[in-house]
């Protein structure tokens, strides 16, 4: 077993800061509403002198343009859950902790090419999502968490990969990094037991007698003497995500950045579950008005953030937003299994060619769904009845005579003299006649001799002689 722990100490801040690139002074407050206290302050605020624990009023006195947002623990919890879902792409054993996550990665090391690469991918991904976190790697989850929390306080800890090395690594770490039950931690401190080394050296029965079996169990779990199973986080079957924008966003461009972040998170989650979405609702919340809801649909399950972003961008481009947007929501009701797209082994060359399905989706998105359709064969000898519109589908075989790419809606009468029909020049009958006489049973009988004809300039047409009107020639189609 090998565990990676993530600590997100500034989660309350990052919930808000994710949504934009710039970071004006921002504090998250908590406490009674009459007297809010600063829980976290971002860098910009800290530069101005704001510190945790001071009252918001005091903070605002220091930085005039300070923005203060009350702490939303539910949103934090939700964000952690989403992050857990996102992290599932690295391992299926992701567990939630109060201020972060732990991942069991021993099974994933080979896939990712070793611990170093896995950590790099994990860290990079988390950063792209707009979070900043600290990491710890240890053979037990508790130890990993301790390492990660140590880093928050600036104590650098090397990754530990074997149980044998663990006690040595833990040795110097202060005990307050663990979450002791009750007042155990204070009691330990009073007794002068400050470091892990000290606690681990104490006799077990005495420790249990003094501090309680729970505390001993915590130590055992930390050191790996006792197993510490974690329940893996099971993300819900639907995907829901909400991102509040730091400031009202006017127009479409301002939405794209946070949207990309959201989509990247969704992609990770979906990747972790080997899933994709075929239908995705993008909701833009406007203050005091009804939200704008865009329903995106894909012919096949998709999860790649870039692709979905391009689709969404086109749709947004055609949508008129009634008011500025304050928050974004993504809702996907159904997740479907999604086979990974084959990546080209000619790596490095950007695949410019767009697949057929994608092209159809793009065209539908741009032109509107009803305007994009395919042509299929219909079972009738009469040319005007010989085709019907259908969903775009692969080609079917045609074994009949030549048929033009363009068919006129209504055949057009041609000028015909003694020498025959003409259309911008005398028409030469190249092939034919192909006689079609049928359709007498439904009131649309056809009795025609069809010819492929060319005029002197080389244009090729599909014409027919109407057998029921002597001397009448009609144009029915054009060969491209």
């Amino acid at each position, binding site marked *: 077993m090998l565990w990676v722990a993530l600590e997100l100490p500034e989660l309350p801040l990052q919930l808000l800061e994710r949504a934009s690139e710039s970071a004006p002074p921002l504090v998250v407050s908590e406490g009674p509403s009459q007297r809010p206290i600063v829980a976290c302050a971002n860098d910009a605020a800290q530069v101005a002198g704001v510190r945790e624990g001071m009252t918001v009023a005091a903070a605002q006195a220091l930085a005039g343009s300070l923005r203060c947002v009350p702490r939303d623990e539910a949103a934090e919890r939700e964000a952690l859950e989403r992050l857990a879902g996102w992290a599932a792409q690295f391992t299926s054993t992701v567990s939630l902790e109060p201020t972060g996550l732990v991942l069991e990665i021993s099974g994933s090391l080979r896939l990712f090419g070793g611990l170093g690469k896995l950590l790099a991918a994990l860290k990079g991904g988390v950063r792209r999502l707009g979070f900043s976190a600290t990491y710890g790697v240890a053979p037990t989850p508790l130890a990993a968490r301790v390492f990660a929390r140590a880093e928050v306080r600036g104590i650098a800890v090397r990754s530990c990969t074997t149980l044998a090395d663990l006690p040595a690594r833990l040795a110097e770490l202060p005990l307050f990094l663990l979450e002791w039950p009750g007042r155990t931690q204070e009691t330990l401190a009073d007794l002068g037991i400050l470091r892990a080394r000290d606690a681990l050296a104490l006799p077990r029965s005495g420790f249990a007698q003094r501090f309680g079996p729970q505390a001993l169990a915590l130590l055992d779990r930390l050191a790996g003497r006792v197993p510490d199973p974690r329940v893996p986080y099971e993300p819900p079957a639907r995907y829901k995500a909400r991102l509040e924008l730091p400031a009202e966003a006017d127009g479409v461009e301002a939405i794209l950045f946070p949207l990309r972040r959201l989509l990247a998170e969704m992609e990770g989650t979906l990747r972790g579950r080997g899933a994709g979405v075929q239908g995705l609702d993008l909701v833009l919340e406007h203050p005091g008005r009804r939200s704008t809801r865009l329903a995106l649909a894909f012919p096949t399950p998709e999860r790649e953030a870039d692709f979905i972003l391009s689709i969404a961008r086109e749709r947004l481009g055609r949508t008129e937003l009634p008011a500025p947007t304050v928050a974004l929501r993504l809702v996907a009701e159904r997740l479907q299994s999604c086979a990974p797209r084959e990546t080209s082994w000619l790596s490095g060359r950007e695949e410019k060619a767009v697949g057929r399905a994608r092209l159809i989706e793009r065209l539908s998105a741009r032109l509107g769904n009803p305007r994009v359709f395919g042509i299929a064969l219909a*079972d*009738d*000898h009469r040319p005007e009845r010989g085709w019907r519109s259908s969903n775009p589908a692969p080609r079917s075989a045609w074994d009949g005579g*030549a048929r033009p790419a363009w068919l006129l809606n209504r055949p057009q009468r041609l000028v015909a003299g003694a020498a025959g029909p003409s259309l911008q020049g005398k028409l030469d009958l190249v092939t034919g006649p192909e*006689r*079609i*006489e049928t359709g*007498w049973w439904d009131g649309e009988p056809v009795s025609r001799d069809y010819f492929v004809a060319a005029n002197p300039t080389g244009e090729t047409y599909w014409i027919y002689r109407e057998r029921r009107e002597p001397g009448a020639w009609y144009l029915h189609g054009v060969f491209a």
Partner: protein
Amino acid sequence: MVPAYAELHCVSNYSFLRGASDPEELVERAARLGYAALAITDECSVAGVVRAHLAAKKAGIRLLVGTEVSLACGLRLVLLARDLAGYETLCGLITAARRAAPKGSYRLTRCGFATPVTGIVALWRPGAGEGPEGGEWVGATFPGMAWIAAELHKGAHDGHELARLRELGIATGLPLVACGDVHMHARGRKRLQDVLTAIRLRTSLAEAGRRLQPNAERYLRPIDRLAKIYPPELLFESLEVASRCTFSLDEIRYEYPDELVPPGETPASHLGKLTAEGLARRYPAGPPGSVVATVRHELRLIAQMGYEPFFLTVHDIVVFARGKGILCQGRGSAANSAVCYCLGITEVDPGRMSVLFERFISKERGEPPDIDVDFEHQRREEVIQYLYAKYGRERAALTAVVITYQPRSAVRDVGKALGLSLDQVDLLAKSLSWWDNPEALRQRIAEAGFDPDSAVLRQVVDLTRQLVGFPRHLSQHPGGFVIDNRNLSRLVPVENATMPGRTVIQWDKDDLDAMGLLKVDVLGLGMLSCIRRALDLVNGYRGSRLSMADIPAEDPAVYAMAQKADTLGVFQIESRAQMAMLPRLKPACFYDLVIEVAIVRPGPIMGKMVHPYLRRREGKEPVSYPSPAVRSVLERTLGVSIFQEQVMQLAVVAAGFTPGEADSLRRAMAAWRRRGGIEPFREKLVGGMLARGYALAYAEQIYQQIQGFGEYGFPESHAASFALLVYVSCWLKCHEPAAFACALLNSQPLGFYNPSQIVQDAQRHGVEVRPVCVLASEVESTLVPGRWAAGHSARVGDGFRV
């Protein structure tokens, strides 16, 4: 100069649900177009060639006989018979193909062909994308007699097609010949052809889509049009092919089975001997002079036409049946001859009916005699098995019956093809009665609530009219046997019938008549079973040895009973209609019974002959004849046409028809429901009669009679055979009521009445009926001396007493 052409590939409506024209229509049209020859090549069948042959002789055009087949490997061929041996091979091939598959389909593989095949021309029809391999096989199997059929119908790829075929020709070494793949005689039949396709595919026209032919070009095209489509050498080649085929159906001769004639005898001598023996047996006191003269006259006629084997065959069957105690009776014009009476084929004494037998064999018609034999219904199968056993399954087979579209089934299928819903179709079909002619169709449709002027309904009417009479499938005739000395499958292909173990030939009775092949109808008659049972019962308790021939003739008591219409259970005259007729007609002699049997029939009724006859008989109307010629025909029926032959004879003597024309009239009458048949004769009939000085009113009346007769008129000879049974059963009822009722009960189901009514009638005649008794009853009803105990099969509740 218009090039000459012979059509080598043409299917008629005997390629069921593919061809849209009769063989006659095709032949006539080809003749009109000036074709050098026409081949009728139905799919794995020669069912239509006899009709085509007769029509071709009349129209003066040469007929080629062949068939179109698709092999199991996908190879498509047209095979034409070059000579008699080739025709026999062809029949053998078709037989093998049909026997190897369930009814209605066929299976032919390359192994079925000997290599090389002689006497047959093969035309190869390469399919799209087919390579030369098939053609090479054809060339090897039919050396020197194989061609590639080039069939162009203004299709999508005509230009390429010809080039492709030429390439195949070079690759295989086979020459090309122009063919038409003809499915109809005129373009106007395309709609019907589409409907046939839809019916065959069990779908509607709209859904058949591209499975319908795209245009109407598969018809017998005028030669100048063909000249614009095919290069002249291909047209010329068709004459080449036709010239290699010299076979004509006339070459088929009947060969009587060898077993019929004992060694050292000829058919004529053997027949003469049997007849003489029979004559002595029938008239132990010596035959009357008139009968002897008749016998001599008939034997002479028989010898002239060479028909001895027919009589000998039937005699053999009757002897077998009698030997087994199976009651039988001959029926038909030839059956009621004096010779047949001597042979024991019929029980009708020529002495009784001297006027009957003038034209029992029509010399001019050249047709073999019409002999049917009725057997006891329940023992008919024994006779059939005897025939199969004696001649073998190869030499004896059942004739076919062509099941044709009737108005009801035609409307149903046309309606479904045109997309009417199932209940609409049912409504339309039910609104027709069996009797209707197509003209009444329109009226019936309006009555059923449809708008007869709507486009759809007009099409329904029009197409139904065309479809009525079209062959739908071949079925086995219940008892018509054809027997030959050779393996039958060399004369005409044999296919599987629906009944397992039964095989049927592809020709029907008319075809066999035209071809001069021996045909015997082995039919079952329930009344014969009843009469035998009654005779057995009577003989049983009286200790007599009564046979049907021993029943005393012209018993007045019998006629008295008949005149009272006390005829429940009596053959032919027990129906309500008959019981109403009997007191009016008051039969008093044998011939009256003959008339009684024939008069209560749709023919005379629709010909409006019944009432005039009755009035004349009762003396309420004077009997008059417009001419002595008419008198000779109608005298025995008081100047009124009752029998079918009288109509024919009138046409000859009063309208000047030749016997051959009268025969066409007879056929047209039989087929009038098919094609509105006798309209063409109207002119000749009425005109002929007017020319001979008859009044227009009389001529019109005669014409109407003929129209009414149709095929419902009863031939006199059949009526006579039946009248005999009427008399016998009536005699039994009169003099042995208990035995008769008992026999009737044991022969159920038979007749119009149920057992309860039979028992009540017997009781009314003083017969005591004992109820069913566990101890005493047998399975069948029996006579008990002094009483008759009803058996378990009777299910009645009272006792009989003699």
